[in-house]
């Protein structure tokens, strides 16, 4: 009994002591001039692909985002930034699960990615319902734009390839074309953007071949290719694209090719492996590491210092979109709520490694567009711009 009384008396003393300390702490924090409590971090989420079909994209995109955040010292408008990257596994269901996790558990209002077109469509409704600002980092489907919560960079899949269709007719002089594309939502838009532009000029698309995304052997498709002035192809996934290209070159078909999304496939390390095989091949690109501008030179040097590799489209797109989000957050004074952030994003205008960037009222970026070619300069295989088109808007919007 004595023991219990003693403990009870000690407990009371502790209670009083804690109350006094708590009150003192509360008072101290209210005193003018006392250090302010640390600001709540702004959480920026990212759904990238570290596994799955485009697993090579994830680390590159992450590196681009990290560079932009490092340049901002992980801080915007006086608030620290917490960056949370998830693996979408190139899978629509997983991407949706990861977005739900980011929103519901991490309380994120901004998601950079997912990366693939079908994943975009899978998460789109949930993102609208929960007022999440989304970013399509390597083009986006036209259907996303009317939702008015997607930053679509560098433009829609369809608009991205329109200049290539014009160039094929106007400059290369092709009149007939066979197209080969990956059979998925974005694949159709990439191919049809250029094909429709080619037809609009007066050209004829005599055959369209759609290939299974996971094709190991393209020879059966190649056996059906009809005679035309050129073969224009867009095969999704760097490994698949390379496999197609090499099997095409080995097949002896011999018709000239046009490579859509060339910058995503003919990346600097891949060009080293290809050697002379793809020398002279023309395609369409949204970014070229060889663009000789002060902004791009600084970016390319910083990226190479960070990763040891020359940057490609994945790094630069992720870098620029993160920069855009940071600029918008700065404009809102660090308010990351969707209603404040969306108009701020649309108002962003900045000089980027890709050239000047602004946005239309749908959140689709307006950037220069490039026709590119593989050339060998000073013993190095590089993609160089051979024609620059001013921003093209998606005619379907």
């Amino acid at each position: 009994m004595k023991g219990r009384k003693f403990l009870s008396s000690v407990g009371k003393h502790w209670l009083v002591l804690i109350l006094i300390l708590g009150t003192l702490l509360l008072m101290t924090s209210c005193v003018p001039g006392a250090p302010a409590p640390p600001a709540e971090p702004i959480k920026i989420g990212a759904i990238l692909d570290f596994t799955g079909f485009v697993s090579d994209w994830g680390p590159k995109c992450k590196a681009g985002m990290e560079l932009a955040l490092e340049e901002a010292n992980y801080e915007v408008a006086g608030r620290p930034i917490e960056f949370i990257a998830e693996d979408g596994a190139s899978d629509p269901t997983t991407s949706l699960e990861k977005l739900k996790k980011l929103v519901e558990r991490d309380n994120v209002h901004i998601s950079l990615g997912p990366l693939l077109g079908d994943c975009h469509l899978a998460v789109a409704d949930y993102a609208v319902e929960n007022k999440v600002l989304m970013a399509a980092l390597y083009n986006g489907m036209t259907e996303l734009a009317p939702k008015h919560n997607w930053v679509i960079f560098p433009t829609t899949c369809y608009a991205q390839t329109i200049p290539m269709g014009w160039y094929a007719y106007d400059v290369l002089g092709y009149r007939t074309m066979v197209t080969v594309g990956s059979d998925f939502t974005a694949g159709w838009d990439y191919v049809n953007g250029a094909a429709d532009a080619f037809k609009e000029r007066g050209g004829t698309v005599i055959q369209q071949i759609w290939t299974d995304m996971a094709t190991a052997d393209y020879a059966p498709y190649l056996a059906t290719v009809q005679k035309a002035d050129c073969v224009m192809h867009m095969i999704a996934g760097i490994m698949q694209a390379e496999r197609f290209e090499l099997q095409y070159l080995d097949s002896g078909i011999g018709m000239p090719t046009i490579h859509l999304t060339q910058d995503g496939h003919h990346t600097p390390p891949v060009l080293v492996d290809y050697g002379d095989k793809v020398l002279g091949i023309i395609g369409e690109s949204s970014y070229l590491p060889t663009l000789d501008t002060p902004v791009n030179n600084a970016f390319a040097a910083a990226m190479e210092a960070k990763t040891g590799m020359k940057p490609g489209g994945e790094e630069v797109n992720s870098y620029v979109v993160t920069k855009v989000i940071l600029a918008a957050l700065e404009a809102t004074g660090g308010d990351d709520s969707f209603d404040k952030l969306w108009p701020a994003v649309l108002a962003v205008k900045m000089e980027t490694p890709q050239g000047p960037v602004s946005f239309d009222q749908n959140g689709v970026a307006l950037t220069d567009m490039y026709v590119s070619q593989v050339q060998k300069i000073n013993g190095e295989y590089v993609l160089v711009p051979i024609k620059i088109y001013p921003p093209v808007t998606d005619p379907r919007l």
Partner: protein
Amino acid sequence: MDFFVLNLLNGISFGMLLFLIASGMSIVMGLMGIVNLAHGALYMVGAYVGWTIAVHYGLNFGLAIFLGGLSAGLVGLMMERAFLRRLYKQPNEQVLLTFGFVYILTNLCIWIWGGGPRLAFTAPGLSGLIQLGGMSYPITRIAIAISGVVVAIVLWWLQDKTRFGAMIRAGMDHKEMTMGLGINLERVFMFTFFLAAFIAGIAGVIGAQLLGAYSGLSIDTLLFALIVVIVGGMGSVQGALLGAILIGIIDAFGRAMFPEFSMFTMYLVMIIILMARPKGLLGRRA
């Protein structure tokens, strides 16, 4: 006519690659009763090692095939000695364990070679086209088909015409009786697993001429191997060969004639075979 011949050749050459991928798995599954889901990962190890020898260091392609096979064989040997030998006749545990190895080997490859893909390459002397009648055909694909035929003959001889093959078959039919005859079955199974992994490795190097080397190979090739084993039947070299060629030809004609259905032509064949012959075309009877 050209269309038919071209697709037949495409089907046979791809089918022979499927045989190279699947034959080792078929042997291990049918004769040893081990469900090795890491077979595709062993193929991937071979592909990366082969690429490194043949492309990165520019050494002899034959050496690349041997070292690719040896690397995969040694990894397989380690798996069998350290883990799988404790799990004979425990299929659930085997599935979990070997699938774990898929992740481990894939991540090891990413760690060593990076996440970027390695391009398909052509062995010296095998580039270019060969004239067949009025059409031309890539020499690489013919070389792949010939490699498959050679491996098939060696495996058939080993399995059906040698004392070693007889010991394996006897061991699977009646383990205790075979051991009672003084045969060291543990050693036989160890060598069989090494051989299967070795074949996966050389298949990886030969197949890299068509598929390249990348971290997704472990799963992509596993699917091919499973389909071939199911269609051809487990434990039979002839079954794996027949299943692989059948799948290859049907896939080639399916993609050429009905490209919009190409995603599931292989699976359609598998379903029909499973319904008609649950043991596969030439599956070994228990």
